[in-house]
């Protein structure tokens, strides 16, 4: 049978051609645009565009906001998902319908519930109303960090369930006998969590970390729905910066920004992969 394996290229070919044509080749080609000054003269300017982007205060602001958002919602989302997946594991009955309900936000289009968030968080919203009615301070609604906090909540609502399922699928692989062994040795729940759950869940944890970072870039949808195409500078993200380059059709700026983003994301991915390898090697 071995000699016929060439035929399998035919299976792969349509997909491979598509990926090459719509992603890889144009991305490689875009380095040409990243290195010229404009489409008219096409003067080679080396890393000039990259330097200009990095010096652009808007780019700095966008990068800062994006990092802040990732720094907030990735750890929060992971902790919440781990906690809920442990609860899910402890659940005796009704686990299937409960999981189903938890997964609903994943398929709800971001725009469908935008009014709900507005009713909750706007200047005349329910939250501020309750604060004023109970005589508490409503000052923080006017602070610049408020919109960022709203985004984190909206994002967690939509994305935590994905991580719950990932953690859950890791938890079911841990043999019960490990816990029984620990219980026999007199270890409490917290010790059991640290020495069994946490250790054997670490490969899953890295996958969750990876997917959380990837998913955190999808927050553009929510920002666009809640605050339109021109949000305040407090939540101006790299996605908006990229979008502005599309609108102004400035290919050199757009492509150089894309390469900066590509390098940054690759670096993060590399770091996560490395860390994962080191931890899994240590435990095996």
């Amino acid at each position, binding site marked *: *049978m071995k000699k016929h*394996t*060439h035929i*399998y290229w*035919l*299976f*792969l*070919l*349509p*997909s*491979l051609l598509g*990926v090459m044509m719509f*992603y*890889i*080749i*144009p991305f490689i080609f875009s380095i040409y645009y990243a290195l010229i000054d404009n489409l008219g003269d096409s003067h080679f300017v080396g890393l000039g565009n990259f330097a200009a982007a990095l010096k652009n205060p808007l780019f700095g602001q966008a990068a800062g906001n994006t990092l802040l958002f990732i720094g907030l919602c990735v750890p929060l989302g992971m902790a919440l998902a781990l906690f809920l997946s442990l*609860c899910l594991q*402890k*659940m005796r009955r009704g686990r299937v319908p409960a999981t189903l309900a*938890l*997964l*609903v*936000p*994943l*398929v709800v*289009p*971001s*725009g*469908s*519930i935008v*009014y*709900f*968030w*507005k*009713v909750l968080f706007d200047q*005349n919203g329910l939250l*501020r109303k309750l604060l*004023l*009615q109970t005589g508490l301070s409503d000052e923080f609604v006017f602070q610049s960090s408020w919109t960022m906090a709203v985004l984190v909540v909206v994002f967690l609502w939509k994305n935590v369930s*994905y991580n719950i*399922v*990932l953690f*859950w*699928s*890791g938890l079911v692989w841990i043999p019960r006998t490990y816990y029984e062994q620990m219980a026999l040795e007199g270890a409490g729940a917290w010790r059991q969590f640290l020495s069994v759950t946490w250790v054997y869940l670490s490969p899953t944890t890295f*996958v969750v970390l990876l*997917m959380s970072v990837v998913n955190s*870039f*999808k927050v553009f*949808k929510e920002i666009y*729905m*809640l605050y339109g*195409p021109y949000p305040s500078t407090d939540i101006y993200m790299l*996605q908006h910066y*990229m*979008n502005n380059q*599309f609108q102004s059709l400035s*290919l050199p700026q*757009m492509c150089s920004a894309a390469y900066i983003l*590509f390098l940054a994301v690759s670096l993060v991915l590399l770091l996560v992969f490395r860390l994962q390898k080191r931890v899994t090697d240590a435990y095996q």
Partner: protein
Amino acid sequence: MKTKHFGADIIIWLAAAVALFPVIFIAANSLMGQDEIISRYSPEILASNTGDFSSHNIRFVRFGLLPERVTLEQYRRLLLESPGYLRMFWNSVIIVVPVLLGQCLLAPLAAYGLENIRWKYKEAIYFTYIIVMLMPTQLLLVPNFLVAGWLNIRSSYLAIILPALFHPLGVFLVRQQLKSFPKECVEAAALDGAGVFRTYRSVVRPNLNSTVAALAVLLFADNWNIVDQAVVFIDKTYQNPLSVYLGNVVSEEPGMFFAVSVFYLIPALLVFLFGQEHLTEGIALSGVKA
């Protein structure tokens, strides 16, 4: 010990309630009349809501799930008087259907091909797929945008559909599943004289049905909620998928928003209910050593 389990149950059901609440809220509010919506949520003090709590000269929302008067007015206006919204709903369908059909046909083929070819760099191909899959949408839009320019399809739906159709997520999910596929089945089919294509069609592909169903749910959720791509490629309002325009409905026609939202949500929920048993499997699969 018993109370502890009980605690976990309560926490999960609370979380489930939080997950469902916004959906229940819009469904309940879609049964209110236009006047009631405006009187409840407008920041201005109107004749109809003078009794409500106000402070600093703004009136606060009167949050509620029970309509004062149940009416299908919002739905009537949507279905009979708003061809624009129906058109945008149709635009969403036009984008989602080809992506779904194309992915469900090509992804299992490609994953099976990749699993079986013998070439020392084939894992490099797979690695490239994974890297593309992990990149943010706005970054992938740059190559998509360039190709769309070369092919002269920048203001057509093809600019959105074609890249989505070849997005590596499908190949990735199916290949994760194939890694645990019993080789004996394929060998048995080969011994029975089935050719490569015949084996794929009658042995391999039927066993991938649940993975393909999971893929379909994930892809539907993603592409029914398309925003980023449409913002870049679509310049005429009426050509937008409804997912993008819902943001405008809030400010332009708040009295109708809830019906439009529910209307747009229904297909997503149907696909979800139809494929829910496979969805968890699909997500879990994406986590098996990504």
